[in-house]
């Protein structure tokens, strides 16, 4: 039963992804590898769509995966059901954990075990996002999988975006959607996929 599996996969993601929406990314790659519900390239596109649409990015990515997976099983209605199931799966552990934590708020904050665990979890979460980023880099720069297929225009675009998002004072505070739309325009103008 595909919907039960969707719920279970996203329940695990919601339970173990610490540090916000982007932290769900390594789990999504793991799901992609094990279930083949969606490809790495599709996942990179999902990140872009999730960043560019209203709603928290982690929720959007879960909804997207759920829609694609459910949609393959049962058309548009299956897609919506999949989107709901994946999203509810993702938020169920959050609701349970937060309801427990809010009952013991003070003790939770002062606990040396909790503090210690998060001291270790934060760098691990960052490292896992980096590792997922490596897979996104592969999908973006080497669509054919080999180094000889690298289009030199892609690293140039990346360097320009890095500068615009970090170094150039007038553009670095702009919303990510501006850069995503700009990159789409560049991709169309330069026919980057051809």
């Amino acid at each position, binding site marked *: 039963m595909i919907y039960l599996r969707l719920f279970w996969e996203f329940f695990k993601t919601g339970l173990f992804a610490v*540090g*916000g929406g982007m932290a769900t990314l390594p789990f999504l790659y793991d799901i992609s590898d094990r279930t083949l519900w969606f490809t790495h*390239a599709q996942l990179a596109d999902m990140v872009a769509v999730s960043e560019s649409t209203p709603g928290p990015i982690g929720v959007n990515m879960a909804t997207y995966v759920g829609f694609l997976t459910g949609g393959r099983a049962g058309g548009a209605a299956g897609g919506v059901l999949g989107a709901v199931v994946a999203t509810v799966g993702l938020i169920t552990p959050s609701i349970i954990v937060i309801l427990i934590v809010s009952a013991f708020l003070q003790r939770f904050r002062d606990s040396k075990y909790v503090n210690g665990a998060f001291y270790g979890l934060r*760098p*691990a979460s960052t490292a896992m996002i980096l590792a997922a980023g490596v897979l996104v880099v592969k999908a973006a720069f080497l669509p054919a999988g080999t180094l000889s297929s690298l289009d030199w225009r892609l690293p140039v675009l990346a360097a320009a975006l890095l500068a615009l998002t970090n170094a150039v004072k007038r553009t670095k505070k702009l919303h990510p959607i501006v850069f995503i739309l700009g990159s789409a325009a560049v991709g169309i103008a330069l026919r980057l996929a051809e």
Partner: protein
Amino acid sequence: MLKNLIELFLTFAKVGVMTFGGGYAMLPILQREVVENKGWATEEELADYFAIGQCTPGVIAVNTATFIGRKKDGVAGGVVATLGVVFPSIVIISLLAGVITQFSELTWVKNAFAGIRVCVCVLIFNAVWKLGKKSVVDKPTAGIFLLVAAGAILTGLSPVVFVLFAGVCGVVLRALQKKGGAAE
């Protein structure tokens, strides 16, 4: 009671619509809607919820919504506020995902996504950089970072393994640091 819950749902649905990007983008909107307009939490409470929401599992926006909903209307409030914050995502993404899948074979759409993927790499790199500055604060955390990065890139192990490993490492390291500090 039902009226309260409906109000909670609609307010958080509004917050969901107005949040673009990640949980961090949500904080100013929560300040305006929940603290200033509705008075459901104080500025300090919101900061606490947000801080805990960042370090408990799950999406920060969802965690914060559960906190505020529970404070206002108990367990039912926590559940309703959370459903409210994810409701717009389900509607919008369901509409878009169908459209994008239909158009994904068109040449110009492929070209657009070739550019967009490069941009996503840069956005993820920036997120890692920002998070790294807050999470890699000393030698032990740098060690955990390198170890997990190498493990996650080179092996096919489930992320769950790394999360459990890092959590245990953190508790042990902190305990050892306390001991070392007391002995000096």
